[in-house]
């Protein structure tokens, strides 16, 4: 069972993690983008945490919805609408719920993933955050179908997201700003896939 306070801890943790990795993510974005991904993520999640503190949400759905709205309003760039969509679609799966179980956890992440996929129209292999999302959600589902609990699911998802992140290095980008680089995007790790891996790692550490 995941509780509302765990969800709040997750968002707090994301604020801390993105603030800590601000320079690192921005550095990655310098190489194949416009040097703002870390700044964008840190701005968004610190605003999200503040929003949740200022008007504490009644349930998990409301919390995720508030995060979504804050990200959409404060992040901008590609990652704002993309992560905003993740949390918006996720929130719909658990409106009014104060806890979620394994099934709810799977729905939360798979709906979030479906949202970002539809919104950004990227495929696996395009060198975007999708390269971390896709294996993470697959691993999460597999862990559950082979009888794992929340901890096992998130453990598997986080590991898969990290592997997906690493797999972006040799790819040629076909979506987002990095795609302008063509062949020159090879050899660089995608910033969005990196922030997605951090998102799953924080989920593992706070929701298990």
């Amino acid at each position, binding site marked *: 069972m995941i509780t509302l306070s765990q969800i709040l801890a997750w968002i707090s943790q994301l604020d801390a993690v993105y603030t800590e990795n601000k320079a690192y993510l*921005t550095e990655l974005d310098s190489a194949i983008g416009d*040097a703002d991904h870390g700044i964008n993520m840190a701005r968004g999640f610190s605003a999200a945490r503040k929003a949740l503190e200022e008007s504490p949400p009644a349930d998990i759905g409301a919390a995720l919805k508030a995060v979504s709205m804050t990200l959409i309003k404060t992040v901008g*760039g590609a990652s*704002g*609408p993309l992560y905003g969509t993740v949390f918006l679609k996720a929130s719909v799966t658990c409106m009014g719920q104060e806890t979620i179980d394994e099934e709810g956890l799977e729905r939360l992440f798979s709906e979030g993933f479906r949202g970002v996929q539809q919104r950004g129209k990227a495929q696996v292999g395009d060198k975007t955050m999708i390269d971390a999302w896709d294996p993470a959600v697959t691993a999460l589902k597999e862990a559950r179908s082979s009888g794992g609990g929340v901890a096992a699911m998130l453990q598997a998802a986080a590991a898969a997201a990290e592997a997906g992140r690493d797999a972006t290095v040799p790819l040629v980008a076909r*979506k987002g700003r990095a795609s302008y680089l063509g062949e020159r995007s090879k050899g660089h790790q995608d910033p969005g896939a990196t922030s997605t891996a951090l998102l799953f790692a924080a989920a593992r550490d706070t929701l298990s």
Partner: protein
Amino acid sequence: MKKLINSPDDVVQESLRGMEAAHADILKVNYDPAYIVRADAPVKNKVGVISGGGSGHEPMHGGFVGRGMLDAACPGAVFTSPTPDQMEEATKAVSSGQGVLHIVKNYTGDVLNFETAADLCQAEGIEVEAVVVDDDVAVKDSLYTAGRRGVGTTVLMEKIVGAAAERGMSLKEVADLARKVNAQGRSMGMALTSCTVPSAGKPTFELGEGEIELGIGIHGEPGRERTALKTARELVDYMGEAIFSDLPYKSGDDVIVMVNGMGGTPLIELYLLYAELERVAKARGITIKRRLVGNYITSLEMQGFSITALKCDDQMVQLWDDPVHTAGLRWGV
């Protein structure tokens, strides 16, 4: 990092304050959400024209708000698309019932955020048309990329389409004209030095003493190739060829051109580059009817320049000559 700022987090907001104080006759600034709007908005019986994008490209877009050009502009964080709430509020502020055109540069972030904003506006009963500018010949346009970037043609579009709206054309006419401008406009840029995003604190990329980046984007995104320093003549030959052969422009064509500084390029060099561009156009039988030479769509303090060419007809030239009264462009008033 050496910049004339107080703190990286406050740059955009504090700059907006200065802009508002300096141009009170032309524009007003709303701070939350942030947008710059014509002092006399909404203008009755006129299609609204708004644009927006990351900050750091000044005078674009805020410097093009005013009579005969934009009704409003939404500034994002530096090099980061603004957010849908800004665009929604700006759209409402300029809407007089004739619909509103959104001029969007083709970056994933800008496109996604303007899409959300258009949905929100339409839900409130405001008719919105969005036109995406994708004119940068430096990057490949294919199904397998995010498409071409939107750069210099945006400035020419904002002038021409702004004049069309001022003349009372309908939303559909204005949007069609904008699409035509986009279809007939091409740009390419290059950089001698990087820019530094204030909150990043260090240059986005490093170029050696003899190196340049050809085909640079306006956010410091790398372009076609990193190569050795060339003369102004060689650069304009190369970039002129890339642009003029892309549409392609033919002998006998008329064009409006822009030789644009990236922010850190002295004007003495921009004029020298313009002389080279005249030469290249002439050799191809292309006539430059109108031109801008200066800093119009910049990348913070980057040294470098871009060339934009827009194949134009008489209507476009007339709209170009129409009065404009903005912080960044002013004539006929």
